[in-house]
């Protein structure tokens, strides 16, 4: 909101330059967003918090300045007039209209405003219209009370009815839009139709024009919620609705009306006549009761003030002291109702800077979130392995996301996903069930920037469970993606092209970093985003925890990816709840082992894990372990077959084995492989 320094200074001269004053205003809670100079004036752009509707005028700011500097503020003199009761106004919706004053000003000459008025309005960013409209705007900026001038002759029956609009009623407003009304909207009407939308905007037909002779000036107070809803419903926010939503001073209506009427008389030559004040149920003053405000103040600020000091500050702000324990809140304040509010009032005028600084008593030892240390290790390990950490929005395009299988789906769980209303990003209406959409988007964007060697990971939440009765489930996932070639620090030389096993390695690195050892990988066809044949389900102790593999080709083609992209997603919430594996010492071997390498040729569908499982579970004597060496296809191996080299190790805990002993058991191992897998040996 714009406040003119000159205007303010007339109301409450405190002998401070504009910039010093701006600093003080900030310190008492009127935050200055900007200061600019204008024709010998300085304009403050003040950010008024939504609870301080009372500060949306020069009077409002002057009251604050007056309280802080303990100097009185003054208002321009104005006509005083006893209300004369007429039957011109009737309030049919007293729940939405608390008070309505009307005044007839006869014989006005509508024309341009005098220069001083134009200057004031322009200083606060208002465009001059005509003297009558300008006066209403001026008084709003001066006293904070919005008001509206009607052309009396345009009102049917020359009467005002304040009522809810009927269904189907329409009004053309001053901005030349035709608006549909309904019973949720409070309308100012004449005897047969709405002539203004209460508290928001006047009607086009009933407005003051150059031919207007007699004016009906409305100065009223409406229900804050009702105005807010109307403004939202019509998507129409005005200076008036902004103030009514935040609350005006219901006890200030007559003064505001008098002020405007005086100006109409002075500037437009009008004659103020009949006045009516409909105030169906008088306002009940709000009082805050507290046993000892001094004690309350000390309890919350640590500052000791005397009762007299506290009362001094509150009186300065317009509070009435009713005995030692009751404080009557001024009619313009809508934000004070409990002792803590009074504490804030006293504290901000006394000065937040006068509150001390201390550390609270320490009763507890600090603690990280119980999963944080493991997550930090995970991040550290992935970063060391060359992965950059990504972070994506939590909502994604539902159609794009459907291309990916979630870990839950792989477990056979088809719980519905979480949708949001009115997405802010077009199409992004789904709370992500997987991190992979974001990761693949990231790959796509980076490819567009010619960054083709990527290793990325994200740790983030996924959501599922659409229901009105229970909150969705939130689960933390780890996604890993890599594509392109190995790259090195400080050199442009590219290394090896990544393949499936780089991804698998990354997943194992990640799991080990959080103390999870022994992930199992099995051929999978379920994940629809992975290419069959380069797709594996990941299990930990029988539970499916994710999938790894190469991005399936139609999906990749959709993004026009020209190089393979490998993706993995793991259920981190599950893994982090699993206990960490703990090292167990095994005595060092006393006798040497005997090693035999064997290359066996098997059909392609025989997996390494099957081979190892068969030899490891057979219980051969002195057999210690079998480990993978390498795989070979090519000369000497038929198509559809491959040669797998495996190292067998034999050891006895009691003695050094002889070659003869080893040969004997090794040949049993080989014949077992031969018969189980129809393997031959190279």
């Amino acid at each position, binding site marked *: 909101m714009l406040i003119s320094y000159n205007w303010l200074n007339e109301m409450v001269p405190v002998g401070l330059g504009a910039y010093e004053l701006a600093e003080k205003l900030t310190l008492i809670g009127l935050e200055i967003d900007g200061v600019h100079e204008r024709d010998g004036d300085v304009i403050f752009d003040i950010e008024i918090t939504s609870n301080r509707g009372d500060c949306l005028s020069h009077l409002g700011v002057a009251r604050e300045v007056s309280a802080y500097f303990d100097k009185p503020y003054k208002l321009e003199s104005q006509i005083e007039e006893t209300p004369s009761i007429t039957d011109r106004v009737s309030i049919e919706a007293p729940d939405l209209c608390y008070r309505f004053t009307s005044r007839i000003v006869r014989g006005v000459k509508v024309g341009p405003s005098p220069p001083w008025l134009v200057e004031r309005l322009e200083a606060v960013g208002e465009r001059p219209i005509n003297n009558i409209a300008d006066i209403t705007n001026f008084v709003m900026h001066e006293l904070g009370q919005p008001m509206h001038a009607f052309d009396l002759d345009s009102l049917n029956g020359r009467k005002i009815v304040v009522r809810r609009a009927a269904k189907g009623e329409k009004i053309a407003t001053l901005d030349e839009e035709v608006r549909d009304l309904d019973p949720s909207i409070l309308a100012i009407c004449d005897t047969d139709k709405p002539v203004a939308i209460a508290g928001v905007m006047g009607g086009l037909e009933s407005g003051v024009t150059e031919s207007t002779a007699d004016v009906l000036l409305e100065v009223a107070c409406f229900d804050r919620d009702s105005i807010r809803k109307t403004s939202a419903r019509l998507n129409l926010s005005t200076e008036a609705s902004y103030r009514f939503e935040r609350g005006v001073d219901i006890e200030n209506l007559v003064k505001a009306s008098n002020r405007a009427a005086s100006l109409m008389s002075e500037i437009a030559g009008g004659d103020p006549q009949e006045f009516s004040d409909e105030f169906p149920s008088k306002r009940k003053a709000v009082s805050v009761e507290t046993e000892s405000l001094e004690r309350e103040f000390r309890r919350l600020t640590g500052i000791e003030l005397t009762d007299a000091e506290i009362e001094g500050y509150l009186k300065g702000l317009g509070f009435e002291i009713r005995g030692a324990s009751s404080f009557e809140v001024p009619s313009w304040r809508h934000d004070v109702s409990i002792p803590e509010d009074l504490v804030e009032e006293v504290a901000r005028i006394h000065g937040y800077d006068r509150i001390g*600084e*201390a550390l609270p008593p320490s009763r507890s030892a600090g*603690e990280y979130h119980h999963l944080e240390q493991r997550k930090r290790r995970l991040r550290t390990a992935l*970063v*060391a392995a060359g992965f*950059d950490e990504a972070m*994506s929005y939590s909502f994604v395009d539902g159609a794009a996301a459907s291309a990916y299988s979630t870990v839950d789906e792989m477990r056979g769980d088809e719980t519905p996903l979480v949708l949001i209303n009115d997405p802010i990003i077009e199409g992004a209406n789904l709370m992500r069930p997987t991190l992979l959409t974001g990761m693949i988007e990231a790959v796509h964007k*980076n490819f567009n920037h010619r*960054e083709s060697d990527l290793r990325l990971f994200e740790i983030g939440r996924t959501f599922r469970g659409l229901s009105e009765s229970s909150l969705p489930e939130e689960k933390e996932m780890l996604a890993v993606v890599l594509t392109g070639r190995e790259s090195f*620090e400080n050199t442009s030389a590219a290394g090896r092209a990544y393949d499936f096993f780089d991804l698998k390695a990354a997943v194992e690195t990640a799991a080990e970093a959080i103390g999870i050892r022994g992930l199992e990988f099995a051929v999978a066809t379920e994940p629809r985003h992975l290419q069959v044949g380069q797709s594996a389900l990941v299990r930990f102790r029988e539970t499916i925890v994710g999938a790894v593999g190469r991005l399936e080709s139609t999906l990749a083609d959709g993004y026009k990816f020209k190089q393979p992209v490998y993706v993995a997603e793991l259920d981190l919430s599950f893994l982090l709840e699993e206990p960490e594996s703990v090292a167990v010492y095994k005595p060092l071997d006393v006798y040497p082992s005997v090693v035999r390498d064997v290359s066996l040729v098997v059909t392609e569908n025989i997996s390494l894990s099957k081979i190892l499982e068969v030899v490891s579970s057979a219980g051969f004597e002195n057999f210690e372990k079998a480990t993978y060496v390498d795989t070979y296809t090519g000369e000497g191996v038929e198509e559809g077959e491959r040669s797998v080299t495996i190292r067998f190790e034999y050891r006895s805990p009691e003695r050094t084995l002889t070659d003869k002993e080893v040969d004997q058991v090794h040949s049993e191992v080989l014949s077992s492989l031969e018969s189980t897998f129809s393997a031959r040996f190279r």
Partner: protein
Amino acid sequence: MSDEKQQLEAIRDSFEKEFDRFSDALKDGFRGMKLSAAEKLAKELGEFRVKHTGKKSPISGAMKLIGRVAPEQRADFGKTVQSVRARIEGRIAETEDSLKSYIRSAKTKREAVDVTLPGRRVRSGHLHPMTLLRHKIEDIFVSMGYAIEDDREIETDHYNFDALNIPVGHPARESKDTFYTTGGFALRSQTSTVQIRAMERRGAPIKIIAPGRVFRRDTPDQTHTPVFHQIEGLCVDTDITMAHLKGTVSEWLRRMYGEETKTRFRPGYFPFTEPSAEFDFSCFKCSGTGEFEEAKCGTCRGSGWIELGGCGMVHPNVLEGCGIDHKVYSGFAFGFGLERMAALMYSLDDIRLMFENDVRFLRQFY
């Protein structure tokens, strides 16, 4: 006698003659000799040494001549033989040493590398700036006795609004600002929700920090993203005052930005605190002067202060709603946005980059 002397002289002469090629090389300091030639020469010198000092060498043979010399001249002759032998051995050894050191230095030279070539290492990854900042802040608060809390991102209206004393009808509750699921739940619009759940779970006293994602229906632009991160702090105990709030926020910011950092508290408004304040800290770029490199400081727009977050004393309605007696306990809470803090720290002019995962951006942080 003269016979023997002559023989000895002949031995010496033949040594000198044969040794010439080595001594010539030595005189030049082996200059320019290739390493392979030097190694060959060393090998030859080894053979030469065996030939001239070994058991079968002429000088070893000369030892036998000593016996033939008249007894009264024997001692003198013996000395002469010994000195010839010593000279032969000495010259060979001297040359061998020089040659060895020449070879060693030639080898060293050959093995020299360009130490400015890059170290051999796989490219390192980078943590996201949000993570880096969060870790730093968490570490500070843990060291100050706070527990780190984490909780739901999708919440009921109760936790997102009611329990935070945000009344029905408050603008923040409108779907204009808050995302809602089709099931009617809110995507939390502030991490203050975690305060409530933590107070319900832990009761008082309590000292927690809650970092997390929050959601507001802002169209993405340079300073807004519909998803962003906040950190919320809460301390409830007996006799907690605004001085503790100021002390805590100030201490944290000093640990974050240095001992000289000043903080400023201004009255503010939040439904869940009363009294409420906004806090600013002295600009780390211009040390609060408003001027940097003789121009208006861009970080604080010349004010010397950077606005960071909101805080206040926990509203009695919030405490009571969590079953904490506000007559016995009081507390403070504060909150701030991480993206804004990071943008300031790194002079970042577009916070949308935080969520774009452009590696040219991500790889700048460590």
